[in-house]
């Protein structure tokens, strides 16, 4: 019970962090039709901006300003970079974002150095919120949950209940028609790209001190976010949300369940010993492959349901 509740909370926190990153990416993904490789870089830049800003103006200002800076950066990238590359097709866009990710990493290394920066949780939130059978639940994690829940709510309301949201949805699915009706579709694209980048930056601001702010953080976070986006389905915010929470919970619970395929077979009466063919493989416990489970799921969903969980069109 103790392990279950604590793991559930941990899974939720991690899932929500994933969602913050993935929500922006899924919007951009459905708009461009191409994965933005530089998305996790915005997460990293957000964390570094927040670190530098928090040295001068404190964490709370950084929480607002750093995502805005990231958004402006995103807008600039879209207007002066992606838009030009766009006419050369998807491959060119893909390569462009890939190159951008490498450049951003190098610039971060040159600006802030190669080793981790001491970006810490603000002292106002650095206390245990409550105690669960001796394991403290830090207040900062609750704060992360709160921020991400607020974010989910506001995006969802924004996309479905406002006029801007309607225009964005229209521009995403029928850009020509939306253009013919007098909407400035390129500006909508820039806005969506900037908003997505700002969301990634926000994830960086609150994820950077929860984890470690170092130049490798984009690289380590990138793949799992792609899994979430593809798994959740193209352009579906709800799908993305479900996929994020699912990935968070799967990875968390896989770690605490010390079972292997051999244990499963034992239930059916097969006892696996060292002599059994393939016993090495059968005896690998779940925790050892916990971090790989999302990728296994990615392969499965691409084979069985290419449009993703709640996607409306094939990837």
């Amino acid at each position, binding site marked *: 019970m103790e392990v279950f509740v*604590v793991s559930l909370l*941990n899974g939720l926190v991690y899932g929500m962090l994933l969602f913050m990153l993935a929500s922006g990416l899924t919007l951009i993904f459905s708009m461009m039709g191409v994965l933005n490789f530089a998305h996790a870089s915005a997460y990293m830049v957000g964390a570094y901006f927040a670190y530098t800003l928090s040295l001068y103006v404190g964490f709370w200002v950084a929480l607002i300003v750093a995502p805005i800076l990231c958004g402006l950066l995103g807008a600039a990238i879209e207007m002066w970079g992606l838009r030009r590359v766009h006419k050369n097709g998807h491959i060119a866009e893909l390569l462009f974002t890939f190159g951008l990710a490498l450049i951003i990493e190098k610039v971060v290394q040159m600006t802030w150095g190669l*080793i*981790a920066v001491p970006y810490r949780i603000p002292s106002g939130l650095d206390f245990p919120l409550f105690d669960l059978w001796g*394991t*403290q639940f830090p207040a900062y994690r609750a704060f992360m949950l709160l921020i991400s829940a607020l974010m989910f709510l506001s995006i969802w309301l924004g996309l479905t209940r406002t006029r801007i949201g309607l225009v964005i949805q229209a521009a995403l699915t029928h850009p020509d028609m939306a253009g013919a009706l007098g909407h400035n579709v390129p500006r909508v694209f820039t806005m969506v790209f900037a908003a997505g980048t700002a969301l990634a930056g926000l994830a960086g601001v609150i994820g950077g001190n929860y984890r470690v702010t170092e130049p490798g953080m984009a690289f380590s976070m990138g793949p799992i976010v792609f899994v979430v986006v593809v798994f959740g389905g193209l352009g579906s915010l709800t799908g993305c949300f479900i996929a994020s929470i699912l990935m968070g919970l799967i990875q968390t619970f896989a*770690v605490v369940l010390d079972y292997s395929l051999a244990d499963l077979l034992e239930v059916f009466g097969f006892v696996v010993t060292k002599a059994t063919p393939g016993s090495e493989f059968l005896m690998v416990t779940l925790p050892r492959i916990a971090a790989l489970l999302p990728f296994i799921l990615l392969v499965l969903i691409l084979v069985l349901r290419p449009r993703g969980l709640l996607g409306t069109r094939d990837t």
Partner: protein
Amino acid sequence: MRFVRTILSAAAAGLVALAAGAMQPAMAQPTIKIAYTDPLSGPFAQVGDANLKQMQYIIDHINSKGGALGRKFELVPFDNKSQPSDALIALKTATDQNMPFIMQCSGSNIAAALIDGINKHNDRNPDNRIIYLNCGAVATELTNDQCSFWHFRFDLNVAQKAEVMVRALPKTTTKVYLINQDYLFGQSVQRDVGAFIKKLRPDIQIVGDELIPLGKIQDFSPYITKIKASGAQALLTGNWGPDMNLLIKAGIESGIDLNYYTFYAHLAGGPTAIGPGGENRVYAVMSFGENIAPEIGNKEAEDWTNGFRAKHNFDFSAAVFRTIFEHVQAAVNKAGVVDATKIAFAMEGQAMKDFLGYETLMRKDDHQIMTAYYVGVFKKGVKYDAEKTGLGWSTAATIKMDDVQQPTSCKMRRPRI
């Protein structure tokens, strides 16, 4: 006209000869080149970059003490991007330029590739041989079954470090949890630490023993939940990089009563990630700490390490590399000639005091250094803090050279001179 031209060309030839003559003294004393190959770009660039700066500081010191045979040492860096194939390209370049030494610190897989390449090269080219100075590839096999005459290891191997770690566990600790990375190095830490616990501390129970995929885990909280449930008092890990930083960070944040015994918490990025919450909880098995010199009252060593701090903006955690260059310096002087074979023979079995005053020995049987080793505890109030965190490594235990002697299975094959 022709006469004038002859005179002119003769004069020109004379001038060239004169210039060549003038250059002769400078040409007669070329530097002794040491190739250094490690990741200088990519995700592990910080390691190679920091090593390079520290080595340069040490070499400048060695050169100010006269170098060897009246010649100075010169470090020539090659980026290997953490790839064995790139390290072999560096080796090729080094041997093409007749460099007598190649140095490599991170990655036992790269070390194994280098040893193999050097063995072949040295067999085929008896008059252009090269010595491998290993400054940190610690897989035990490299000085056991895979030992080579041309390979000299200047850091303790995994089995030795594991012994130091187990010896440092206090008597009150009876339940430990092992987490290691699922690849060659992590698995050997797991094996060796387990073996030494069985041998030295049969009272200790291993309540959890886990391998994690290398660099894939984003959130370590579930592991902490498991450790908590197991009732472990100490976590023993050979993890490095994000796998170690995130693990310790998650543990400290959850506030569980746990001590952390690590191999790499003191290195690049570790202290920053751990932060003040890790006070008196995090231990590191380390080859050097900047507080050792003031603790043992060695003013000269302290001043020398301070010189690095004044010049560079980061910790001098690899100051003990000085032992490598002092062994090399002594061996070259003893050999009397820059010849890899003669230097290698001079270096094996060579004993000397390191700059802190502790004995070191390059063991002849397996070319494994025997040297003092330290267990540091992360705490406030030390003279030199780590990564400007305000906390630093205070020496909790000093293990002398004789206590790290372990038997070897190496059957050294020596070349005929």
